[in-house]
């Protein structure tokens, strides 16, 4: 399908202030997307609260609003500008959240603004843990089993059902204090007693432990014609349990055989097709280092931090292509240099990303890496070996 001619003005939501976990990579993606839309002849209106970005340069978008990224302000802009469509999947989680709020509050319907790219139902399916779990079960894709327990007996029952080792997470405690790994009944009883006390609601989540699993990510992209490809896969040198943003990440994966690589690739493509995502998507897996057992950990139905890395690592401009897919173009119609965007990049080099931590500035912060991102910067290197 060629690009759409029924829309003329498109609103792009930027990523807002730079905070830990959401930094310049979204500026990079947003800039690419704005330029791509302009290249196709659309009028681009940008809203971003952060003036210290490249995307807010006057040459990038046709009109720039430097306003707070809240429902109220963005709604005002929409009512004033009356764009035909809105492109939400570019500004990281902030942009996606605002678009979802606009949709839920009825602002989009009221102003007849179309949500470009992935539909709101798909976004909800990917982001809502319960719905996502349902979808995976439908597809026969493995997700981590987890059961809520309110007592020691329930905890034991859950652990037996899931199988040891399990991880115990008390509900609503800060940073997961009081939880831990249990290998047998004895350990479980010990930890769960404490955990139940700590949780203000007396709930403990019993989940299968995937400590030490390999963490593998795939960047996939799909168009409205259901053509889907992998841009790049990545392997985290730090296993599951440490935030991807803090991990040392290499692209492509280093320890996967052809079977494992394509097992996960197939799964990632199945997910993106089932979610009907139009544009880039990031799929994270945990793979047992001693078998073919894998679990889907997370799906980000948008341009993410990892896609910025994958994009730079592979030379494949994910945000640019995603923006063009959003206006109805097919992968094989989008040209990257002289090549159609429907090929998978084959690297003849290895990319390594290492995070930089601000522990010298935040002396009081814990320097223990965990599931919350702590890095404030990163270095990427491209070489012939690791």
């Amino acid at each position, binding site marked *: 399908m060629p690009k759409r001619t029924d829309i003329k003005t498109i609103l792009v939501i930027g990523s807002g202030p730079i905070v830990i976990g959401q930094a310049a990579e979204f500026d990079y993606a947003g800039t690419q997307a704005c330029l791509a839309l302009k290249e196709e002849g659309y009028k681009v209106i940008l809203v971003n609260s952060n003036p210290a970005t490249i995307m807010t340069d006057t040459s990038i978008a046709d009109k720039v609003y430097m306003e707070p990224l809240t429902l109220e302000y963005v709604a005002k802009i929409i009512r004033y500008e009356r764009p035909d469509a809105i492109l939400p999947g570019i500004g990281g989680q902030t942009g996606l959240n605002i678009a979802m709020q606009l949709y839920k509050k009825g602002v989009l319907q009221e102003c007849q603004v179309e949500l470009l790219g992935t539909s709101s139902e798909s976004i909800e399916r990917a982001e809502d843990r319960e719905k996502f779990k349902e979808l995976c079960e439908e597809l026969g894709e493995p997700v981590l089993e987890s059961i809520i327990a309110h007592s020691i007996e329930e905890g034991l029952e859950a652990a037996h059902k899931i199988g040891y080792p399990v991880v115990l997470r008390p509900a609503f405690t800060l940073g997961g204090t009081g939880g831990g790994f249990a290998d047998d009944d004895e350990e479980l009883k010990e930890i769960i007693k404490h955990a139940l006390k700590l949780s203000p609601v007396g709930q403990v989540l019993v989940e299968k432990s995937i400590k030490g699993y390999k963490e593998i990510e795939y960047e996939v992209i799909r168009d409205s014609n259901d053509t889907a490809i992998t841009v790049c896969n990545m392997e985290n040198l730090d296993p599951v349990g440490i935030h991807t943003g803090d991990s040392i990440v290499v692209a492509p994966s280093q320890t996967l055989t052809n079977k494992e690589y*394509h097992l996960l*690739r197939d799964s990632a*493509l199945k997910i993106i097709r089932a979610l009907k995502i139009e544009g880039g998507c990031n799929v994270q897996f945990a793979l047992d280092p001693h078998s073919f057992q894998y679990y889907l950990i997370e799906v980000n139905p948008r341009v993410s931090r990892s896609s910025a890395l994958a994009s730079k690592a592979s030379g494949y401009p994910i945000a640019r292509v995603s923006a063009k897919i959003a206006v109805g173009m097919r992968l*094989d119609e989008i040209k990257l240099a002289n090549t159609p965007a429907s090929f998978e*990049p084959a690297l003849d080099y290895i990319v390594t990303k290492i995070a930089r931590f601000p522990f010298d500035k935040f002396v009081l912060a814990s320097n223990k890496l965990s599931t919350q991102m702590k890095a404030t910067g990163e270095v990427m290197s491209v070489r012939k070996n690791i």
Partner: protein
Amino acid sequence: MKEFNKKIVLEDGEEYFGYGFGANVENICEIVFNTSMVGYQEIVSDPSYTYQMVVMTYPLIGNYGITDEDYETKQPTIGGIIVREYNNRPSNFRYTKTLSEYLEENNIPGIYGIDTRKLTRSIRDKGSRKVIITDINTGKEEALKKLKEYDIPKDVVSKVSCKKRWYSRTTNPKYNVVAVDCGIKLNIIRSLNARGCNVTIVPYNTDAQKITELKPDGIFLSNGPGDPEDVVEVINLVKELKGKYPIFGICLGHQIISLAYGAKTYKLKFGHRGGNHPVKNFETGKIEITSQNHSYAVDEKSLDKTDLKVTHKNILDDTVEGVECKKDKIFSVQYHPESAPGPQDSGYLFDKFINLMKGE
């Protein structure tokens, strides 16, 4: 720095120095490159690489060793492997030996420390050529002389085809497939087995009479090395059997079917080898990412006067990737739907073959 102990010399005089691994033997082959990032085990054991030496464009090879289950043939016939960096300390739960040990066991030479990017550029610019892998002390003149005197044999298919028929059975079989072995990859047989086919693998020179006696529901024509025009036996076989049984061909099998219908084949400058080739399926309009390994291609113009219709095309260079004759229940693809190595986007072609046998 460690001193170089091996080198490769190309027939036009290009020379690259490196270190040996695998078997310490001299060998002359045609040089080709492969862009797959994973799957070196499937590549070194793929019979289609007979008399070919493969340059891996991905720079780190050996990372996950060699596993017991992922061979594509029982006896590998690849001529050699050229890599940038070889890793002799694999990390994977299934690995049982290193790549070097596997090559050594099978008398296959390998060389690492080569600027594979430069070498690949050279192959892209000047095309495939003859190459010798030899000891560092062999003089350049001597190496060039050896290259000049040696002709790469044409009897490739007879070399890799099975000598007598063998069976790959499955539980609860529904169909009986005869596979004509021109150098068949084991994953094709596994893919057919997985779909309820009992497969009888027969030598390439089996005649139509013998195949009919096996009472097949469908006939499969395998991939294989070399020039399709040299495989006269199988071309004649297709001419005799077409329209009588559903026939499915992959790679060399695709070229043979095209030749049997009167089309022509030609040699590509440097071939397609890798796991990232986008192919457009004209029936669905979708793009499949395919695994490819071929030097020859079917000439599109020459198909005009035949009963075959083009079903798939490579969107990078517009070469023919698939043909079909609905009336004769015959179809084939240039790429590898069985993957190994490569993406598994095209498994539906096996299902199509099953449906033809089912009579749909």
